[in-house]
């Protein structure tokens, strides 16, 4: 027994200290993290917590409770739960975010990035530059371009052969969604372009040698290897679309009726048009909760093994 013990190499001996393969908390990291933590608390967590607090008060922008506001418990929350416009707004926000951000921008961005791989350099540069310019344009400009194009006398209506039609007011949610997709696709394309360049050629060539057709190569090789980028892009597109106020507000201001009343616009309307700051804050809080849930799901998904 003693002889066996001496035969064990020192490197395989039972560890005597802490495991080295796990992240450990180090006291010395506190001062290094302190500035970032303070900034995070002061500039993010603090305002978010304050916004949650305001959501449960009767604060108004103007009126008797503009200064002397009070805690009102669950009154606002009860109203929010029974507010049909908020319910419709949730549904429209989901449609807008998933349709235009997750499916639209991510899908078209991926398609463009793949097409760019095989395009001749001149075309690649031209298309790439155009798409990136769309992404770089200020949201106000994007909104104005799409407003002009989709109303009477606009390019889109002319392309469909009815220049006097008013597509924006006939299909409002589809068109504000299209404007959002148009503005975000450039970012998705850039992300996918970089990820596609990192796929090892050897893997693709091996698949070709195994006579895998393009569809098989896409679904068996490209897509699995792009998974981390897809997750990141979908998260980005979701959050950017969820926070998209400018395009929708300028194009339709939430109308006609409430047909494009997504959550950011509804929050603004309640807070600054109806002067109900507390209720507007609560609608904003609902967005924070939504964004947190979505982010959590994506982060979990990104941890899954490829």
């Amino acid at each position, binding site marked *: 027994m003693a002889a066996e013990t001496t035969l064990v190499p020192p490197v395989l001996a039972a560890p005597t200290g802490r495991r080295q393969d796990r992240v450990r908390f180090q006291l010395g990291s506190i001062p290094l993290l302190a500035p970032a933590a303070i900034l995070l608390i002061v500039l993010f967590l603090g305002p978010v917590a304050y916004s949650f607090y305001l959501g449960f008060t009767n604060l108004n922008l103007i009126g008797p409770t*503009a*200064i002397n506001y009070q805690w009102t418990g669950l009154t606002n929350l009860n109203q929010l739960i029974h*507010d049909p416009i908020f319910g419709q707004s949730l549904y429209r926000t989901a449609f807008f975010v998933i349709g235009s951000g997750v499916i639209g921008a991510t899908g078209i961005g991926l398609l463009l990035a793949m097409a760019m791989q095989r395009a001749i350099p001149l075309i690649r540069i031209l298309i790439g530059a155009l798409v990136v310019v769309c992404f770089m344009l200020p949201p106000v400009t994007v909104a104005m371009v799409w407003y002009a194009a989709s109303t009477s006398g606009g390019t889109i209506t002319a392309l469909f052969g009815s220049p006097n039609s008013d597509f924006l*007011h006939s299909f409002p949610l589809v068109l504000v969604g299209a404007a959002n997709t148009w503005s975000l696709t450039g970012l998705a394309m850039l992300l996918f372009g970089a990820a596609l360049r990192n796929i090892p050629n050897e893997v693709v060539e091996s698949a070709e040698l195994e006579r895998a057709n393009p569809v098989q190569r896409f679904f068996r090789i490209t897509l699995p290897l792009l998974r981390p980028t897809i997750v990141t892009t979908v998260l980005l597109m979701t959050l950017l679309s969820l926070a998209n106020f400018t395009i929708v507000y300028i194009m339709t*201001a939430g109308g*006609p*009726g409430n047909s494009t009343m997504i959550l950011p616009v509804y929050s603004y309307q309640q807070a600054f*048009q109806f002067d109900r700051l507390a209720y507007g804050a609560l609608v904003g809080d609902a967005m924070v909760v939504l964004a947190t849930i979505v982010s959590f799901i994506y982060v979990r998904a990104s941890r899954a093994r490829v």
Partner: protein
Amino acid sequence: MGILVRGRRLRITIAAALAAAAVVAVLLVVGSSSPASANTTTPVAKAAGGTTLTVAYGSTFVFLTPALAVKWWGGVAKEFEKAHPGVTVKFDPIPGSYNDIVTKLSLLYRSSSTAPDVAELPDGELGGWVASDYLLPLNKYLPTATYWKNFPQSVKNETTFNGTTYAVDHGENTNALFYNIPMFKKAGIPVPWQPHSWADILSAAAKIHKSNATVWPLWLQGGSAGGTIAIQYNGGNLLQGSSTPTIYDSKTKKWVVDSPGLLQTFQFYSDLAKNHLEAPASELLNPNAVDNVPALTSEQKMAIVVGANFYGEAWVKATCGPCWTAAPKTMGVAYLPTQNGPGYASSLGGWELAIGAHTKNASLAWDFIQTAQQETNMIDADNWGGWVPPDKQYWTAPQYTNYAPPYQSFFAKIMPTAVDEPNTTDFAIWGTGFNDATGAIIENPSTTPQQALTIMKNYVTQQLGSGLVETLK
């Protein structure tokens, strides 16, 4: 070796801690110094032996052009500073639209350090600011305001709450019908034209449509994109001319969401939409539609326009919004009749001058308002801001009537009968419901007046609660 490594780690930790502490200290110093630096304006001015009077105004929305706003406010400040040596006027111009002005002012008023001494406010939101105790009661100053006694009671009412006056008006908007004379002649409609009922207006619009299918027979905006301010220039006028014009029942303290007047108003919208007598939906539902009307009218796209007095002032050379020297010969004006006559109807709305409740310079602030309200300044403001003077003495003053004839004197005549909309905060909700109803008809002409009324009723009831709304029979 181990000791050395631990010693290096310790030194690194101490260095990092010191660096972090330095960063935090800098942040705290910067953070704590910001408010002090923001408050230096007044002490510096006082140190130089003077006082600063802050004045907030809408720089791009209120006057007909931003340049005219700068010219008028600059002129008043110069005159005031000359009469008050040592006092400096510091402007806080607020760019943006109606809602931007209301929001910025509301936020400024939240703190006494940012609240302006004097502000130009829309009367539509005045009730909210008064309820917030943001404004100084002016009753003790009014005896020195010689113009106040010449204001119509309706204008005084805009700024007076429970007997206390919180602001004085410096310009009003009234509304009527503009009509294109050549188009009327082509359609065989005699001019000058004065309809006596809403049926007369629809009949004229139908004749125009028959004679020239390329023009828009009538402009009457609706929908929510233009905001509740657009009601004053459009559907609100019809409601005033209906059989039950009440918007807010001051006896029951409830908002009217169902009434014969609302139904009559939506019926008019419906008649226009069903018979293709309206302008295109894309133009009517445009967020900038109110501002676009003078240009669209000058392009001679429309035969009849329900609109405000400032359209006429927009076309003169001094304003050029756009320039249209042929306007007086091309666009006639007619009173908007009540639904079945007799009589005429118009909404009323204006811009007021008020003093902040917590100002330290109340007397100087009042003097500034007095300077702004002197005859020449008031009339200049009304010409350049697109308003009718609140002082009835100026309705016939050549300085006013000659600015944009024949429109100035015509719209001034409407002042005594024009009616202001409620100026409490919940009007925005009532107005949004009204706009949703008119917008539904414009978007989908098959929407019946009763369906539009239901849209409005449901919306306002959901937002305000059933205890704050009522039906008028």
